[in-house]
């Protein structure tokens, strides 16, 4: 297993693998999102309390999951970058962070659009909402630190430390609805095998969640591939400069 990861960490091999995998993850994303949208919008029941507004769940919940999964990706690859100095780990953290930030933003926006008709307010300073807002700020801080230094490696190191310190926020988000009294409803899909949600709602929710996940993987692979090429371009330009002197 470790030799598998060692071979993967070779950028050239990674590019070859990513190129081979990309069409399939993209196809899976499209298939899941397409069928998920059909069930979410046309073939799932309205909620007995929330009416048709419950359909916001199918875009809100997956974006919340991906905001947290994206941050976990950033934190884990930051740990690998700090401990083992894998050449790819920094690139993965750098590539995943803006994507996760977009999902955190979507989670906040769609949550606000759901909160207004259901709670009567766009925003409340309760534990779940505030901790997701902090997640969004952590992403912004990560991006800012990455680009704050002339020496990209120093920036990557500072950003990695922030990503690891901020990781504590992920379990806080997850358990905030249990630890504190919040406006936010508890998880609908918590008990494995026996979620407290109608199966006709669970199907589009899971399809959308898989669709978002494959979308994330696809965009991440494209971005990491782009970063590897950017590093090659930089090295070639440096070589040209030295040759010219």
């Amino acid at each position, binding site marked *: 297993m470790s030799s598998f990861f060692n071979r993967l960490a070779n950028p050239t091999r990674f590019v070859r693998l990513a190129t081979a995998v990309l069409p399939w993850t993209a196809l899976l994303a499209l298939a899941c999102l397409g069928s998920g949208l059909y069930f979410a919008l046309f073939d799932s029941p309205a909620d007995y309390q929330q009416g048709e*507004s419950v*359909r916001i769940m199918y875009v809100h919940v997956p974006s919340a999951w991906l905001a947290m999964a994206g941050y976990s990706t950033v934190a884990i690859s930051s740990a690998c970058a700090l401990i083992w100095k894998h050449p790819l780990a920094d690139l993965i953290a750098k590539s995943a962070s803006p994507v996760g930030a977009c999902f955190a933003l979507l989670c906040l926006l*769609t949550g606000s*659009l759901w909160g207004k008709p259901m709670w009567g307010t766009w925003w409340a300073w309760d534990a779940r909402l505030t901790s997701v807002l902090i997640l969004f700020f952590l992403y912004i801080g990560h991006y800012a630190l990455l680009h704050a230094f002339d020496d990209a490696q120093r920036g990557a190191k500072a950003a990695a430390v922030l990503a690891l310190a901020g990781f504590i926020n992920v379990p806080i988000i997850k358990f905030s609805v249990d630890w504190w009294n919040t406006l936010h409803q508890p998880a609908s899909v918590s008990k494995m095998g026996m979620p407290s949600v109608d199966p006709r709602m669970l199907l589009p929710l899971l399809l959308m969640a898989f669709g978002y996940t494959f979308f994330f993987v696809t*965009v991440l692979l494209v971005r990491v*591939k782009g970063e590897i*090429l*950017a590093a090659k371009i930089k090295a*070639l330009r440096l070589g040209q400069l030295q040759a010219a002197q």
Partner: protein
Amino acid sequence: MNDYLAMGGYAAFVWPAYGLSAIVMIGLAANAWRSLKAREKDLARLRDQLP
């Protein structure tokens, strides 16, 4: 049809939620793809210049 689009009175919340999600995700994918293609082009040009 109009009945469906009205979303039981929640149209003003449901459609913006889906619209924003679509805009942000299409933007993410397009941006990633465009910058990859631009870099592939740069790299090909640089390699052509190599002796």
